[in-house]
């Protein structure tokens, strides 16, 4: 390998929380920034390199098994062993249950649930072989709490949390820890999606006002929790969901 640092794979790393996380983790690791949006991934790599870090951009559609396999081959060829992973690729399609189109439901499940499943399945065999590793899957407060017009999202995020717990049990004997993040409202493109600039301004304001802490979170504040969950600081934690949510959900 060209570098001595350990490697982390971050999916969805071309924007939002995952981009902030890629940048945070780049302080100590080489980051593989994977995203369906190749330009976004390249931009993240550029930002990491500008700060003296090292990263590799890879284009991937996590919902597509062939694409995930291609990603793995590229990683093996160009980067080497994956020591840690943050699976955060996600999309958001709003809609009340009665009006969700089947294809929208399917794409939500494909990106979030199948994507997380395929990515975990891709990296876990080598981690099991090495008898070490840590994974964090991106869930949401909405895995636990109900919210209108987001049934596909809540169901997908609940599935990711559930998958995380089962994986945690299955892989604990190999010293691999698997946890989930359940953020509340964070200032990210996914929260902004489907809203005009005006709507977004109003939404940010009302999200903030409705939170106990009075403001929405920053992607960097989620990245800081991710860092904790991937580090040895949490070496006795597995199967947990941690909520950087400004107090939106307490359970």
């Amino acid at each position, binding site marked *: 390998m060209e570098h001595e640092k350990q490697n982390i794979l971050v999916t969805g790393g071309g924007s939002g929380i995952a981009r902030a996380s890629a940048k945070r983790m780049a302080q100590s690791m080489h980051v593989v920034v994977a995203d369906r949006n190749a330009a976004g991934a390249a931009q993240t790599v550029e930002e990491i390199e500008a700060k003296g870090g090292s990263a590799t951009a890879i284009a991937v559609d996590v919902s597509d098994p062939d694409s995930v396999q291609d990603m793995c081959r590229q990683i093996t060829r160009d980067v080497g062993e994956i020591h840690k992973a943050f699976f955060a690729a996600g999309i958001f399609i709003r809609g009340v249950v009665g009006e969700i189109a089947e294809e929208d439901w399917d794409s939500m499940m494909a990106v979030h649930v199948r994507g997380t499943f395929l990515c975990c399945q891709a990296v876990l065999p080598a981690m099991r072989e090495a008898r070490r590793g840590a994974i964090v899957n991106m869930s949401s407060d909405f895995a636990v709490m109900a919210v209108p017009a987001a049934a596909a999202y809540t169901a997908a995020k609940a599935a990711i949390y559930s998958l995380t*717990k089962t994986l*945690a*049990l299955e892989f*604990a*004997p190999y*010293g691999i*820890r698997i946890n989930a993040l359940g953020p*509340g409202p964070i200032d990210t493109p996914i929260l902004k999606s489907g809203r005009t600039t005006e709507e977004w301004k109003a939404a940010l304001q009302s999200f903030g006002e409705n*939170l*106990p*802490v*009075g403001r929405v*979170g*920053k992607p960097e*504040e*989620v990245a*800081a*929790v991710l*860092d*904790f969950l991937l580090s040895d*600081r*949490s*070496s*006795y*934690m*597995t*199967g*947990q969901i*941690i*909520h*950087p*949510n*400004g*107090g939106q*959900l*307490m*359970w």
Partner: protein
Amino acid sequence: METIIVTGAGSGIGFALTERLLAENFCVSAWDTKEGALQNIQNDALTFHSLDVRDYNGMVDAVADAAAGAQTIAGVATCAAIYRATPFLELTLKDWEEHFSVNLKGTLFACQAVLPRFLEQRSGSIVMFSSSIARRGALNSSAYAATKGGVLGLMRALALDHARAGIRANAISPGIADTPMPRQVMSETDLFERGEDIPLGRIGTPVDMVEAAMFLLSKDASFVTGQDIRVNGGAGLF
């Protein structure tokens, strides 16, 4: 320098947390009923107060003392607790109330003693110790379980009440750990054998809990409030 207050600092997790905080250059206002519990630690950043968390006025004085010497009281970790295993039908009212006055009211009082200072600063991180027993129960532990459930409720209410003032409150729920407490009810061998039933293959250590507390006290947890961090090796995932 920033000060952290630690209750129950004389043993177990509170002791380990005090050691870590000092190592990371915090000032520590360490409270415990056991006079001389920290006498082996020679460090100018450590101030020991011999007091009981049932003594509200004593804690107010200790906070004033800590505030006089420090720029900021950055946080408080409430580790003080008692545990006595008693079958439910043998539990006396005296036993029940003693658990509540130390574990729950003591936590409330400690927070009340320091909150005016936090409100003045418009910052402060509160870390309460609950227990996995709050959610999962344990044999002959009804009083303890009830107080630790109470801690979670108190933590959430406090988090809500003071979120806008920049004050965060969270809890840690340790699973069974290598501390004096479980040794009251089981042998050394039995304690470590419990690790075999835990997914990560071992019981917890005080350091495992200290890491979570350091995280919650730090800026890394700036958007984390009202949460219960379960440091339990994956035992009982729900």
